[in-house]
């Protein structure tokens, strides 16, 4: 794929679109460009603005979680019958977003999709930060987080009390913590050669020491590279099933229950596809402004964006198929509760949200059938936001509309979020932004050494096949 330019006669514009790296780059220019963002260039005003927004929202998270701990989960809009609200919606949403990073770094690595190289680092970072945001919710959504934080783990204790292993929430604990650990390791291992590059190029003393420690004595020897490649492959192998398993288990939170709208066997594949769908949308949302701000159009090319649009189109269809199947099964089951659930989603008090979801995730992504749309920056950016909203709505619909009218009409109710729900949600967006802006300031957001492997020189030298 990377040698298209040499095979066919293409116009300059088409060549630019098709390339995974801009023309004229050498090993040095790549290294200079990426490393100097971290080491030498002053941060642009937009970075400061972004960080400020992130920190502002983050302080809202501090405030709302502080008040939550002081007062109780009653500050949110949850009630009986709707015992789960924003916290679980946001948890699933964030976890889903994280999936794209793992998919890009692990599965695409194994599949030798080399176009992934330039987006892989920050997609992985995005995974980590999304998991961090997600992990906040299961803890704080409990009534007594100070106990939940450790009672959910099987630790030896004098009472010989173990967690209840039949509960999907228990499985979540293992799934998410495993996922977080593997993602962190994978990301960090991938960073080591670049950290060494930064160490070597750093001029300030603090940077030298910090990167020196973090690079774990990397010297770039053949042994190092050999071990690195092995570790990478192993971790990729470990992470690959996680892409499928984590959201499968998250979907079990719903599928294992008896509630109409939750109790569905389609949930695992449909959740995984939804996760990748939303994850790619988030990668697009992040990469478009970043490449503009830091002038990285050469590294994150239209080719990348177009490929991601294709992935979104494909996974979007899996998700949409899931929606259609839910409707079909609700009718086909002949179960009055299932049928009512579906009718209520479509015509009940939350119907506008349902139709907005169908539009965002089912109708709107069809625009990606057109290459023009796939390669138009504004359309891509808007669509990525639309899909993020759509995937959030999906979780809202699943959590709220299933609970608010279940079996006994006497206990039906409504759920509306409070200001504290919104502040907590916005606060995790703030946490994500803050972590992300700090990341692009102190670490190479694009893998330097991997980028070096995809320029023609690397091939000529035979370093890489």
């Amino acid at each position, binding site marked *: 794929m990377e040698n298209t330019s040499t095979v066919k006669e293409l116009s300059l514009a088409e060549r630019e679109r098709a390339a995974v790296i801009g023309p004229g780059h050498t090993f040095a220019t790549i290294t200079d460009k990426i490393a100097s963002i971290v080491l030498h260039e002053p941060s642009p005003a937009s970075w400061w603005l972004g960080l400020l927004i992130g920190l502002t929202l983050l302080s809202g998270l501090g405030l709302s979680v502080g008040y939550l701990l002081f007062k109780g989960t009653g500050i949110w809009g949850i009630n*009986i019958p709707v015992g789960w609200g924003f916290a679980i919606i946001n948890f699933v949403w964030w976890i889903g977003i994280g999936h794209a990073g793992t998919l890009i770094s692990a599965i695409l690595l194994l599949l030798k999709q080399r176009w992934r190289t330039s987006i892989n680092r920050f997609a992985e970072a995005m995974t980590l930060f999304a998991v961090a945001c997600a992990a906040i919710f299961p803890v704080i959504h409990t009534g007594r987080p100070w106990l939940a934080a450790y009672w959910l783990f099987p630790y030896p204790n004098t009472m010989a009390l173990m967690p209840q292993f039949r*509960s999907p929430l228990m499985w979540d604990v293992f799934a998410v913590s495993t996922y977080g650990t593997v993602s962190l390791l994978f990301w960090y291992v991938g960073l080591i050669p670049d950290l060494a590059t930064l160490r070597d190029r750093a001029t300030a003393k603090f940077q030298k020491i910090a990167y020196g420690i973090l690079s774990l004595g990397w010297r770039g020897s053949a042994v190092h590279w050999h071990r690195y490649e092995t570790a990478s492959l192993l971790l990729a192998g470990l992470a690959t099933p996680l892409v499928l398993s984590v959201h499968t288990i998250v979907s079990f939170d719903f599928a294992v229950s008896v509630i109409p709208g939750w109790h569905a066997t389609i949930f695992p594949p449909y959740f995984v596809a939804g996760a990748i769908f939303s994850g790619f949308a988030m990668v697009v949302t992040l990469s478009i402004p970043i490449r503009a701000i830091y002038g990285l159009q050469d590294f994150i090319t239209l080719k990348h964006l177009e490929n991601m649009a294709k992935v979104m189109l494909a996974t979007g269809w899996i998700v949409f198929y899931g929606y259609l199947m839910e409707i079909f099964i609700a009718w086909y089951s002949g179960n009055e509760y299932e049928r009512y659930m579906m009718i209520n989603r479509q015509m009940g008090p939350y119907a506008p949200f349902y139709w907005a979801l169908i539009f965002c995730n089912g109708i709107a992504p069809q625009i990606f059938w057109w290459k023009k749309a796939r390669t138009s920056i504004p359309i891509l950016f808007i669509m990525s936001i639309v899909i993020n909203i759509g995937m959030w709505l999906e979780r809202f619909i699943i959590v709220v509309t299933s609970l608010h009218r279940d079996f006994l009409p006497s206990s039906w109710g409504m759920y509306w979020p409070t200001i504290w729900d919104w502040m907590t949600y916005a606060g995790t967006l703030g946490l994500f932004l803050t972590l992300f802006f700090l990341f692009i300031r102190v670490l190479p957001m694009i893998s330097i050494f991997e980028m070096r492997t995809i320029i023609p020189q690397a091939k000529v030298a035979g370093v890489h096949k």
Partner: protein
Amino acid sequence: MRLSKRVDVNELYQIRTSGLDLKTIREKLVTARGPRFWQSLEELAETREFKELLFREFPRQASEWVDDEPGRRRFLKLMGASLALAGVTACTRQPDEKILPYVRQPEETIPGKSLYFATAMPLSGVGVGVLAESHQGRPTKLEGNPEHPGSLGGADALTQASVLQLYDPDRLNTLLHYGEVATWNQFSQEMTKVVAAAKLNKGAGLRILTETVGSPTLGAQLRQFLADFPNAKWHQWEPAGAHSARTGAELAFGKPVHTYYKVDNAEVILTLDADFLTTGPGNVRYARNFASRRRVYENGGKMNRLYAVESCPSGTGTMADHRWPMRAGEIQNFAAALAQALGVEVGGLAGGAFRGVPEASMKALAADLGAHKGTSLVVAGEQQPPETHALAHAINAALGNIGTTVLYTEPIETMPVDQVASLKELVADLNSGNVETMLILGGNPVYNAPADLDFAAAMKKAKLRIALCYYDDETSSLCHWQVPEAHYLEAWGDIRAYNGAVSIQQPLIQPLYRGKSAVDLMTFFGPVPEQPAYEVVRAYWQSRTSGDFEAWWRKAVHDGVAPGAAFPAVNVTVKPGWASALRPAALPEMELNFRPDPTVYDGRFANNGWLQELPKPLTKLTWENVALVSVETARELNVQAGDIVELRSGGRSVQAPVWILPGHANRSVTVHLGYGRTRAGRVGNQAGFNAYWLRASARLWSGEDLEIRKTGGRTELACTQSHWKMEGRHPVRAGTLAQYEKDPAFAKAMAHEFPPEITLYPERKYEGYAWGMAIDLGSCNGCNACVIACQAENNIPVVGREQVLAQREMHWIRVDRYFEGDLDNPTAHSQPVLCMHCENAPCEVVCPVAATVHSAEGLNDMVYNRCVGTRYCSNNCPYKVRRFNFLLYADFETEISKMQRNPDVSVRSRGVMEKCTYCVQRINQARIEAKRADREIKDGEVLTACQQTCPTQAIHFGNLNDPNSKVAKLKQEQLNYSLLGELNTRPRTTYLASLRNPHPALAPAGAPESKSHG
């Protein structure tokens, strides 16, 4: 008065008399932390408020002090004396009275074990027998007294909730004179002066105002008072009393008689706007007797039949086999027409117009009543005019029901008078300045007297106003003296039941705030001032019994019913020509009806959090009252539920939110009394609107010339069940007697029951006990008694209006209400829903920390300590019976409220899930008893709180492994079905489908959904 900033006793003593900030003090008093209030000297000496109280208790010494040059010795002397005296007065000396005859066996108080004492709860002059549960001297819960004719073991919601009133932190907790703390001695001197003055002028200018007096002892005291002071007067005002019943009986019989019913003897019953099954005197007994004739499986396949004609849907109406909504004003005309059809002479009442009952129905009804001579019953509601009552008496007489289903006795109130006339006379005397001293013994006339009398303004003209009051309320705050009233659990007394039987009321606790009863205060006018009420009551009954009085007394106090003291039935005959001068009722364009509120009653329970938060039957509204209208009327008025309208009647207007109640009569508005209090306390203040403001003395139960105007405002109402319909599902299964005769198992066929054999897992065996419950929906009338009983038993917190709006009420048992059929006249069903204790409990598998687990006896146990509050269990509960402490709902601060708590049940903190436990503490108590006696727990030994109080005996609980247990037998009934059994939850709680017995010739009102299962 502002207190000196520093806590300095010297400065304190220099405070001169001026307005004391009593409110703050009282608030501090009630919210004070620590084990006890003024029972130890240390506490008294340490807090500023107590020092101040102490100072106020001895104003004379103190005021001497201010003028003197304060020498150190003298100061210390006085100081010491004050403290010592404060201690003496604070630590109430135990009187030499025997107050502990036991109802149950234990010979001595055993710590941790509760004792039960019989007493009676008075309401509007009528008593209901209760057994009060006492934990080491603290009454914590009330249960019906099985030996009392008005209870038979059941108790209604108001009775259940009255124990909370005892511990109300907003009670008036000290004697006040001009709003300042005063001593009993000062008051005693004042009373002595009043009595001395009265002796000189034979009581001229002395007036006593009471509520309806149903206490024979107090009645005797008051009669003696009138005899001793012939110029004095005694007035009575009971806002929700039996005014029409009294006048109606006089109209029909020419003399005041009391009417009560033997509902179990009746096969055909007609109620004329009477909610006799859930409100009013005897309702608990009537409900039980009525339900006993509903259960086909116990009566050889027979059922009684109830016809209801009513303006506002009621608990009784929901039980009816035929129900016709009719404007309250037309019911009298309907009754006259019916009477005529039955051949009763109705004089001038004939020919009035009424709508709502078709000709054929009328004929069938008359024929049905006529065919059941001696076994039929016509009941007129208190809110009907006296004419309807008289017509009911006449019809009952003509049908030969007197002596079989209707019985008459002497009036159970000691002085039956026209209370409106009595109150008018008092107001006239007040306004003409004839009243020197007014003694208000209970009641809150400033709030609840007819608005046109302007009682507050008149009352202020009395020169000395003394109120015996439970709260610093609208009335007592305008009085010079406010004497804290003792709760009925704090005082000796006596009261007559709905049928004239007498109960001796015994105190379970020393008055918490040195409260006095009306009997106590009346002793000032008697031969021995300040004679203990114990002696007064004893002396009264000693003079009225023969033989061994001590034995009689012990039995009376122990049993809760005084032997041989009941009124015998009297023979009465309807006065011929009683109705000749009367005319049919005129019909207003739009009528306004007043009703006592189903939860806060006439306003006296406004500060009772349990009752405020109790969803009202049918509307399921909490914390407020509304203007109830029918669907059709709402359409005509173009209003939605929650719209605020202005109701104008008699030149006065109030703003009220509208609520649409299907089945309400058209062109009729019902408002409930008891709300809009301004000085009820922190719970009841400003809740709802004050309907008394529209109530005039001319017609107590209906307003005239009602005008309704939309204001454009809207409010959100705290309703716990907003959904009316069953959505084609079958949570409640109901059929007709004919249907049952054809197919007794019709209810089971309404939904697929999950076949138990389809499972991968081995069947779980329950050795020993297997607890289960069966609820007979055919008996349940939705009276809510179970909800409050559960709340009292299980320390369930009150969450407040805002949290109810957020759908977070905490009741472990709720009464679901569904409407079925015609929107204008639907059939309403009530269904108590509590934890089903599923054998395959969906909640248990999803809890990550094993905080909800199954017991070996089949209980679904909740381990509060282990719960981290994921709420997954509640999400996965198909019945949504789990309740979560979203915030810190339990009150850990108010000391006095803690006294009510049941020590056998944990108080749950924030972040913890809770739910019905099948009263596991009661099971364990019975288990301990049984083990000690080396036997099995007997059937009926464990009564859950809801079961125990249920007036209709709809709830049965017991061991399913015992084939002879009542519950096991009920589960064998063909009517038995599982709620959502198709989910294979295998609930241990099951329901018996409800049956109706419509007249074969008439279509049942709101025919049951004909659609069968899918």
